[in-house]
Structures are given as structure tokens and as C-alpha cells.
């Protein structure tokens, strides 16, 4: 009986909080408190119709800790404006952690990366300096 009540409580919590957060998210988006706007939505739609970007990272700079930064074309949709489709590859192998927080990239590294605004913030798989480790880095939208 107790476990049934606990399950009901859990389901009610999940449903009620999901509903509440959906309403809150709508408010935050409509009032532009978080960075999703109709303009960005149309940009996202346009980006979806354009060919998927791919290219090699030839220029990069050290940011902090394990984090390095390379510029990307501004037309791409990044995590700061609706969810990046970008994958980062090291010698052709996909790095394991997209959409990572910048602090985690700096501190933990190990292949974490983030496509934010017009740049990719990333770390190499072994936290070596990607400008000097002899490995080739490329990006591709999927």
C-alpha cells in the first residue's frame, strides 16, 4: 500500500512539475528572458533548410584550463540560440560530450565541447593542446 502511494506521489510530482515548468518556460520565452525569440526560430528554420555545415578547425586559441575556442560561421544555430546540431571530430572520431557547460570543459575536458554563439569551446580527448598535439579537428552539422 505504501509503495503504491509513493508511486502515485511520484507520478503526480512529475506531471505537476512538468506542467508548471512548461508554463514557466512559455512565459520566459515570450518575455524574452531566455534567449529563444521568433527571430531565432526563423533563423533556426532557415538553417534547417540550408546545407549542413562542415569544415576543419584550422585556427584556435586557448581559453582557460582545458578549454580552447575556435570561431565558426555566424549563420549556424548554436546552443545559445536553440540547440546546436554540430558534432566535433578528433582525427575523424566524434568527441563524446556535446552541449557541455563551459566550466566542465575548462575543468574536466576529456572531449567535452559546446557550440555557443559563433564559436566552439572544446577540449581534446586527452586534454592535450589541440594546437600542438598533431591531431586534426573538424566539425559537421548532423
Amino acid at each position, binding site marked *: 500500500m505504501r509503495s503504491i502511494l509513493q508511486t502515485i506521489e511520484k507520478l503526480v*510530482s*512529475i506531471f505537476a512539475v512538468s506542467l508548471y515548468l512548461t508554463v*514557466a518556460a512559455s512565459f520566459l520565452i515570450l518575455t524574452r528572458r531566455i534567449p529563444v525569440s521568433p527571430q531565432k526560430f526563423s533563423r533556426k528554420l532557415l538553417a534547417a533548410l540550408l546545407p549542413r555545415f562542415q569544415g576543419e578547425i584550422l585556427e584556435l586559441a586557448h581559453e582557460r584550463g582545458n578549454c580552447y575556442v575556435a570561431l565558426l560561421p555566424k549563420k549556424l544555430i548554436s546552443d545559445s540560440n536553440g*540547440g546546436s546540431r554540430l558534432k566535433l571530430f578528433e582525427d575523424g572520431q566524434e568527441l563524446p*560530450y556535446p*552541449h557541455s*557547460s*563551459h566550466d566542465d570543459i575548462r*575543468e574536466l575536458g576529456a572531449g567535452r565541447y559546446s557550440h555557443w554563439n559563433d564559436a566552439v569551446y572544446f577540449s581534446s580527448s586527452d586534454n592535450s593542446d589541440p594546437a600542438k598535439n598533431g591531431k586534426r579537428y573538424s566539425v559537421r552539422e548532423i
Partner: protein
Amino acid sequence: MSCTGRGFLYSLLACPICKSSLNRVGESLVCPKDDRRFPILRGIPRFVESDAYVDSFSFEWNTHKTTQLDTFRNDGSSEDIFRKKTGFRPEDLDGKLVLDAGIGAGRFTDAMARWGANVIGIDLSYAVEAARENFRHLDNVLVAQADIGDLPFKPETFDAIVSIGVLHHTPDTKKYFQGLVPYLRHGGTIAIWVYPAEGEFVTRKQWIPFTSRIPDRMFYQWCRWFVPYGQRRLDSLLIKSIYSIFPFSNQGLGLENDILDTFDGYSPRFHGIHTPQEVEAWFQEVGLVDIRIPGPWNTSMRGVRL
């Protein structure tokens, strides 16, 4: 008197109001000046009557008492973070008297105690119950329930003060930080980390007025369901879209840590975000010297009191 052991640490407690040394009378500490009494409940001196605005921390740290403690995780993840956020090494703190301002369940006190420091950990929340349980066997750790803004110590007591991930949860990050400095001995070091004004911290701040109102137990149940669900589907368009407006934890330190960290990120009442320049200015204003960022986090900073 020996400068180690719990008896010594108890002797450092003072009346938060008049700063007089306290006398122990039974299970209370008594101020000799105004007879004010501070009870010792379940082995913890109490200088506040409730957990005020930090009830979410009372909940989370008593639910996740050991999730982030290296001693229980059998790894060095918290110690590693502590080193990088404070720049302290074991030899810096061995035998030193340290205040952990906002101990939580004690993930950083766990590291400092192993290094040989004498640590007093204070917290406004009932996280002190979890911390006391984690350190009851250690003679070099004392846990007390107190407000960072109203500390139960005399000025110039500590060799070092650390406050990692705490001050931005007070009503005024700068004021509470600067209020800690007088408790540092001359030549002592203070090290803090506060949320940076960038990336997901900015997004989360927008959510706080909504998420902090959800009853803790309900929001925690939701995090327990959503975080593993979201992590399994991070490549789906729906979860990517949700992540971009509601970033949840994915630190690679285990699912329990990520559930805890997501709850921790959205449930507190106060969520200050700050730039490195702002933090540096706070240090300069109170005359700290040798100010530097010790590691990869932009808003972790340490300084020395002249």
C-alpha cells in the same frame, strides 16, 4: 591549551552578538555578558533558530549526505575541484585553522580534514545534520549551525577561510563575502568561488523565481525522473531544445551527482551571478592583496589579508 582537537575548536566559538567567549553549561553554550543561550542539539551548536531562506539545502544535503564526498565515492573528484578552485595544497592547510563557510554535507571539509587542517564548518541550513554525521568520528572537525552574516567567532580567528559555491546563495554576495574577511588572521588567505555571469548560469537565473517556489520534495522527484531521461536522449531534437532553455547537469561524475546538481542549480531562493572583474573589485575594496584566480574557473578567486 592544545591548538588541536574538538575541545579547542569549541573554545573558538563566541557570542555572534557581543563576541564574548562562551561557557559550556550542560548542553548549551552561554554568553557570560547577557546570558544568551545557544543550544547544542545532536552534537551541533546552534546559533540560529531555523534554516531561514535555505530550506532547499536542508533537503538536498540530507538526501545526498555522501554523494559528493570523496571518502564515500572512493575517488578524488571533490579534492581535485577544491585544489583548482582555491589553489590550496595539502601542505598549505596542514595544522591550520580553517573556516568552511557553507559546509553543506562537507565535500570540501572532507578533503581539508584529510590534509590535516582543523576545520570549523558552518551552515545556515540543516545540512549540518548530514555534515555532523559524516565527520562525527573526526576530532579535527567541528560543525555548527550559524549564519555567514552573523558568525559566532571573534575577529581574526582563522588562518584560512573557504567558501566554495555558497555566497551567491545569500541575499547579497558582496556583503556576505566582505563580512567574512574580518575573521581572517593577518597573513591568512580567503578563497571563494561564485557563479559566473555566463552560459547556463545566466539562463538558470531566469528560472529561479519559478523553480525555487516548487516544493522541494516535488521538484526533487521531478529531477530524479527528468535528469536520467534527458541524459539518455541528449541527441534528440526535443531534449536539445529543452537543454538550451533548461540546462541540466551532465558532469560525468555519476547520475546521483547530476540529479543533486540539477536540483541544487534550480531550487535555491538566491542565485547571484558575477563577473571576474566584479569579484576582484570586492577583494580590492577590503584591502586583500596577492589576489589571483587559482584555476580554470573565472570567478574562483583568492586573496591574502595584510
